[in-house]
């Protein structure tokens, strides 16, 4: 595996510091070096790591630690606290519009898991909240994208709105909302084509859809294996579309998933769901504290 020994190393360092009656500057230095490595190897963005280490250092030489009876333990507590804090507190809920339908737009890079998550989310809304969603095939670019969503719709026995690949995604979204109103679908989930955050033309298309349908939620779908670039992607999507939440996919893998931390740090938007497999029932609420531990490999 990629991260052999990481948790052990960190535990070792913590172990050394744990019983100490006095925490020296050298102790703090050694510990922060290990924490830095752990975070970088977990793909947390280097800028985020830098700020994080700075805060830990400040607190580690501060009064709460120095005046504690068990300074070693106190330092470790500081690291875990700060990390959990950074990862975000509680789980958050999915929006409900005052007047139905509630509109959810799925956005993100190519291959992140938008279409699959569209199906999973619809399944979740029906099972957990007794809702009746309409899925919208607004990806007219990727070969067989419509077919993919229609197949998911069939598996779920749920309606899928599509107008083929010649239609304009903005029109597709508009007409879908009208159909949802006519057919009393209380949620509309719009699957959009994957695109690069630097693709101005396609980012503009998303802004137009957004202006037209005024979504209650805009979910940025992010692959948990994403490396350092996650901040660029999340920042740009958030700036241009005012994302309301993040779905982290492919967390059933063995990645540490440090991107989660970076995204939370730069956008301050909650991670709402975790994708835990390819099947339509493999979507889970996101637990920030568990994620924090995973990132450190504990």
């Amino acid at each position, binding site marked *: 595996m*990629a*991260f052999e020994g990481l948790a052990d190393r960190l535990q070792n360092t913590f172990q050394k510091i744990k019983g100490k009656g006095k925490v020296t500057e050298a102790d703090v230095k050694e510990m922060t070096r290990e924490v830095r490595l752990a975070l970088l190897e977990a793909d947390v963005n280097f800028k985020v790591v830098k700020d994080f280490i700075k805060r830990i250092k400040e607190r580690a030489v501060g009064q709460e630690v120095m005046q504690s009876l068990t300074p070693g333990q106190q330092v470790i507590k500081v690291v875990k606290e700060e990390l959990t804090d950074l990862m975000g507190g509680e789980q958050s809920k999915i929006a409900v519009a005052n007047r139905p339908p509630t509109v959810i737009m799925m956005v993100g890079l*190519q291959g992140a898991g938008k279409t699959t998550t569209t199906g999973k989310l619809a399944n979740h809304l029906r099972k957990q909240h007794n809702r009746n969603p309409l899925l919208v095939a607004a990806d007219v670019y990727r070969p*067989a994208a419509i077919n993919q969503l229609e197949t998911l719709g069939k598996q779920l026995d749920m309606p899928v709105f599509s107008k083929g690949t010649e239609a304009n995604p903005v029109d597709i979204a508009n007409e879908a909302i009208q159909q949802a109103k006519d057919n009393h679908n209380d949620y509309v989930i719009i699957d959009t084509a994957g695109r690069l955050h630097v693709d101005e033309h396609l980012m503009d298309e998303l802004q137009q859809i957004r202006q037209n349908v005024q979504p209650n939620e805009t979910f940025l779908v992010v692959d948990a294996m994403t*490396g*350092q*670039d996650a901040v660029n992607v999340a920042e740009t999507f958030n700036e241009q579309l005012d994302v309301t939440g993040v779905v982290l996919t*492919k967390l059933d893998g063995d990645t540490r998933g440090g991107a989660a931390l970076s995204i939370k740090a730069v956008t301050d938007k909650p991670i709402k769901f975790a994708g835990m497999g390819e099947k339509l029932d493999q979507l889970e609420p996101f637990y920030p504290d568990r994620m924090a531990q995973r990132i450190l490999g504990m």
Partner: protein
Amino acid sequence: AKYRTVDEEFFEELEEILISADVGVNTVMELIDELKMEVKRQNIKDSSRMKEVISQKLVEIYYGDDEEEIEELQLNEDGLSVILFVGVNGVGKTTTIGKMAQRLKDQGKNVVLAAGDTFRAGAIEQLEIWGQRVNVPVIKHSEGSDPAAVIYDGIQSAKSKGADVLLCDTAGRLQNKVNLMNELSKVKRVIEREIPGAPHESLLVLDATTGQNALSQAKTFSESTNVSGIVLTKLDGTAKGGIVMAIRNELDIPVKYVGLGEKVTDLQAFDAHAFVYGLFADMLEEQEEQSS
């Protein structure tokens, strides 16, 4: 132009640039140590020559003890060649097959595609559309059928058509799923059994936005399919794909192609020099602008 001095701050910035390109912290620290020695040895004072020195070191890391050579596909010159595409979910396997089919056709080869992803919704239709785009036959079974059986049929069909190359698509799978990795080994065994020496290439498709997990992907997929090369996709974004440095260094797997978009023409042969330059170019170009 005025150049900045090569001091501790310079190396710190270089370290950050390379880490932000996903090169991986261990490889970066080793590299920085070596560069520091090199700078001392050559008595380099300002950054004017650093571009060259850094490039050279990175290319050295990339090639290791091997000769620098362009890695072409190792195809069977007389008879059918089989290329197996593997990788985690959503990296670009199916799209790369479409692009590669066109590339091989342009070289005068007869190409057949096998729709070995029988699992993901719309996967077969996606490959069929690529087949239509580049005008090559696609061998398929229905959704949910045994992938090894599809590949077997693909081989028989390609043989009977007298085709030159068979490109085999497979479903994306995360490398920690043991049963899915076993399924892939089975596909490989079927290919080996039908044609001695095949698959002629097992290409691991890697998404350039992937971080350190790519190393684990390369290790585990190699165990099940003996990966012979990497296709690094989505390099048209802002991600740099630096993790392939560590993969080459630790596992000795070369990058063969890069994906630069979603169009059929967006596949290029890998150029190590251009690639390593891209890993740190931002930093030095910025400096030149500032100092000129």
